[in-house]
């Protein structure tokens, strides 16, 4: 077994990657995913395996520096680590690396060098720093043929193949093959975006040696340090007495509130794990004097629940104001139409109209005291956050 060295991922993969198998990081353009392959390589060098890195977008010296910035000192691995230089040929400079692809436009030449390298690094790992660049140089169809061949080679020589792949808009057939056919495991590295990308996550798209775990892990990139998992914050806001604290407690596996005389004076805090997604939940106080807290948390949060009391339209202008405060950060939100059990409660549609939100904005009916609608709302928000 070769480990990925990415937080929690090895557990999800049943311990790591069996020898002879391949794993591809399927990276959304604009997300800093190249570090995944680098971290996996470094992790295994540290464990004493030999490792090879194919660079096609960066000069070897600069690449070594990028490793160093991550806190990965490659100089201590001696001959156990080598670079295949597929870059210098592109910009027309020379190279001192052990393996050089002098003519990157010649597919059979690329193939020759890479095949030889796989053979020599038998029992170790071989990391493609940017498979997309190789596809770009060789052409989609040809590249796929070669990749299949390299993967066979890896199997024969007990090498583990690791690929970084930026999912540019290639043909749907190519993307489909990459996602679902050619590699033994595919890890999606995606951005959480609502207009701008403000968070990043990874999760398993495919794995053929163990059961697939459906979990999304949020991560931050730290230099030095590499990829670090973290738990996102989700904000629960809404007017006074709408049911925010009740909502936080209903959703959470554990929760605390700081209340005085039944109203929240500091924060409700809970932690939820549901359908492979975990989050820290923060409930804000409803009273206006606590608004600065909302602003403070809004900058940190990844999503917002707006709880409204469906029987109190007189509070809606206040709800709109609170939503404006949070939406300044461009966060996705779900409106929870609470207290649907009380007679005369307005319907979610009516509430959406009265709040003057876009007709597609989700308004979820709920009775938080009975936990009804609570997890539905959570799932909708998670879908929005992770792009469905």
């Amino acid at each position: 077994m070769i480990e990925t060295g990415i937080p929690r991922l090895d557990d999800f993969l049943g311990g790591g990657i069996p020898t002879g198998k391949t794993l591809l990081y399927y990276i959304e353009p604009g997300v800093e995913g190249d570090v995944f392959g680098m971290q996996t390589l470094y992790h295994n060098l540290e464990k004493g395996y030999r490792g090879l890195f194919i660079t096609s977008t960066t000069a070897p010296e600069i690449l070594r520096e990028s490793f160093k910035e991550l806190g990965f000192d490659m100089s201590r691995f001696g001959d156990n680590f080598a670079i295949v230089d597929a870059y210098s040929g592109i910009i027309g400079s020379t190279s001192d690396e052990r393996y050089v692809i002098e003519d990157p436009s010649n597919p059979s030449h690329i193939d020759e060098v890479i095949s030889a390298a796989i053979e020599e690094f038998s029992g170790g790992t071989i990391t493609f720093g940017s498979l997309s660049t190789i596809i770009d140089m060789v052409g989609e169809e040809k590249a796929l043929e070669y990749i299949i061949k390299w993967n066979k080679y890896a199997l024969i020589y007990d090498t583990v193949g690791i690929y970084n792949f930026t999912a540019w808009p290639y043909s749907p057939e190519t993307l489909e093959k990459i996602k679902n056919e050619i590699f033994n495991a595919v890890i999606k590295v995606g951005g959480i975006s609502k207009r701008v990308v403000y968070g990043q996550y990874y999760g398993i798209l495919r794995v053929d040696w163990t059961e697939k775990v459906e979990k999304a892990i949020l991560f931050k990139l730290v230099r030095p340090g590499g990829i670090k998992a973290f738990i996102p914050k989700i904000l629960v806001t809404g007017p006074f007495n709408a049911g925010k604290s009740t909502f936080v407690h209903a959703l959470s596996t554990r929760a605390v509130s700081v209340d005085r005389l039944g109203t929240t004076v500091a924060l409700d805090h809970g932690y939820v794990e549901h359908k492979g997604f975990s989050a820290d939940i923060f409930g804000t106080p409803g009273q206006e004097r606590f608004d600065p807290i909302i602003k403070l948390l809004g900058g940190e949060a990844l999503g917002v629940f707006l709880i409204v009391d469906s029987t109190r339209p007189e509070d809606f202008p206040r709800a709109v104001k609170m939503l404006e405060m949070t939406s300044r950060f461009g966060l996705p939100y779900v409106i929870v139409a609470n207290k649907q059990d009380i007679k005369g409660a307005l319907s979610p549609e009516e509430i959406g109209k009265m709040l003057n939100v876009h007709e597609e904005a989700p308004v979820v009916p709920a009775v938080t005291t009975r936990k009804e609608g609570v997890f539905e709302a959570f799932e909708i928000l998670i879908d929005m956050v992770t792009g469905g």
Partner: protein
Amino acid sequence: MLCLIGDWKIEGYSLGIDVLDQKVGKIPPGSNIMIVGPPMTGKSVLGRMFFYNRLKDGSAGIFVSTKDTGEKVIDWFKTNDLDISRAKYGIIDCVSRTLQMDINLQDTDRIRYVSSPVDLTGISVKVNDLLEEFWKKEQIRSIGVVIESLSALLMYSNLQTVFRFLHVFSGRIRSVDAAGMYLIEEGMHDPRTQVTLKQLFQGVIETKDEGGEKLLQVIAPGCKVSGWFRYNFEGAKIDLKEI
């Protein structure tokens, strides 16, 4: 996509050249515009003045430089007495690490380094970082983006590759209601290149040189049709006359 209440409205982006702004009007938010023409016709000045105008009016600017180093771009503004020191901007420098082989360059607030012009993934990562910074931290909703120039990218990557990159890039510009300007040298690429890339853009600013006389026109959606203008430029100044 959902629409938030209290959503912002951006009027549009002026080009930053007086006569043009009066005659042409503003470039609508979400537009991607190609600036195309032969060498030495002031395309850079047009791109840079567009960038400067963002910084002047309190919006933010992103400048992707594939030709000059970030330092050199900043110097240009200084030399031409255009003060950008207090503005919100970021320059993505795709040159320094490759050409100067300077491995110790660290990102600064102003200049972010990409390892090479081949590293299109790196460019889109840095652009995303800056967009997020401007949007979330600075809460700026009006952002102008300039790529100077596509021609340098096309030297190292093939047309297909650059097309795919720009497809994603221009989509991002659209989704944040920014405006993008993309410079491309005429005559440096086969005609197919320009035609292919044109599909990605909503408008074009065309320059030409007719026997020493420089002409330009702006064709963009939502803009009044401009027709050709005769112009001269020196430093950062563009003098424009209608024909």
